[in-house]
């Protein structure tokens, strides 16, 4: 059942992304002002959305563990955070490349960039502290609390940085409304990335479960 879910989500993600990438590079025309480089958008926005959804899933996993005391929820939480961090880093890197091309700078302390970067830092903290606990129950409990604390911070970070930056308007470039074909391509890529995120999370979830099985067998062997 688990393997099937991985294959289905992964396969669907692959098909959608392949078809859509062909469409993006071969069919869609260049954008009027930016030329070819606007295509980064299709690999910039979808990972950001996927990352946010996965961070939400991580918090749900945290609450799930605290309510049911089942390690499956903890595995879900850490799997979602790992994939979420990767997606957010992809978002930051693609954005940085686009910024270098369009603004002439690699980095601007703009509201969105700063809050995204802080999100990555918070969740990297989550991943770094996990191995520091040797006791599995303690690790899962602390991780669950952390995932709730971290997710509560996201909206506050977002608003605070937006207010902070309104006093110093940064070089924010908003394209006013996407053309229909481009919007559809963006939508398909978002679906593709969400499925990819789901597939990767399921794979990580599986490896977490296997790891826990090995751990319990080792303990059993020691007991004997």
């Amino acid at each position, binding site marked *: 059942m688990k393997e099937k879910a991985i294959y289905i989500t992964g396969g669907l993600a692959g098909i959608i992304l392949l078809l859509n990438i062909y469409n993006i590079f071969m069919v869609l025309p260049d954008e009027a002002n930016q030329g070819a480089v606007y295509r980064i958008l299709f690999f910039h926005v979808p990972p950001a959305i996927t990352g946010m959804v996965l961070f939400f899933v991580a918090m749900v996993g945290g609450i799930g563990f605290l309510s049911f005391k089942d390690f499956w929820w903890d595995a879900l939480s850490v799997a979602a955070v790992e994939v979420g961090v990767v997606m957010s880093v992809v978002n930051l890197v693609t954005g940085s490349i686009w910024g270098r091309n369009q603004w002439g700078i690699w980095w601007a302390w703009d509201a969105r960039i700063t809050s995204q970067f802080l999100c990555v830092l918070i969740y990297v903290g989550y991943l770094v502290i996990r191995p520091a*606990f040797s006791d599995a129950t303690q690790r899962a409990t*602390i991780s669950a609390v*952390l995932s709730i*604390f971290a997710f509560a911070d996201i909206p506050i970070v977002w*608003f605070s*940085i937006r207010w902070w930056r309104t006093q110093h308007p940064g070089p924010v470039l908003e394209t006013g409304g996407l053309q229909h074909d481009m919007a559809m391509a963006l939508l398909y890529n978002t679906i593709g990335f969400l499925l990819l995120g789901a597939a990767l999370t399921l794979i990580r979830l599986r490896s977490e479960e296997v790891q826990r099985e090995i751990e319990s067998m080792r303990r059993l062997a020691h007991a004997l």
Partner: protein
Amino acid sequence: MANKVWTIVAKDLRSEFRSKESINAAVSFALVMLVIFNFAFDPTAEETHTLSGGLLWIIFVFAGTLVLNRSFARELPNDCLDALIAAPIPGFQLFLGKAIAGFILVLGVELISLPVFGIFYDIDLIAPFWRLFLVMALGTWALTVIGTTFSALTVNVRLREIMLPMLIYPVLMPALIAAITMSGSILDGGTFSGNNLIWLKLLSGFSVIYTALAVGLIDIVLVG
């Protein structure tokens, strides 16, 4: 309830004033930072005034972390933490007691380093003192709540001194932005109106949200 909380506050303060281990470290650390800043910025220049809010909070937060790091770690020798958890006092009261004690200590360190800062950088602190004090109190409470919670989270962790700042600072960022912006503006003669009022609300909101979260989750952190 107030009685039990107060017992914890008095116990923490008494043990700190007898050993003075974290207060001494924090105050001397704050002084060292003030000297280092002197080499990084020209202390007489006009820009230093606009930077002063940021400088002040870098000192407060770094020195504060030194104090808060000890909040729960202090209880580790002789298994005092187990005794505290087993004592007939609810987790949230234990947390509030520790947080209030930490708040008093950190605010004390801040009040000692503030006049030194004023003298070294020739900044008038007398006229805006009460406004600045309000910001300091609110910002310090936010720092203390986050710091005490994460101190409880990391108490059993290897490399605790490294883990704690890594977790605290990204989560604390909205409160820090608010405190830095307001302090800078107040030292420049500003009052609580316009933007400062928004920041004041944000800082208060942040403190309320995280105090509520911490009080709700601390039993899980301490007991599991």
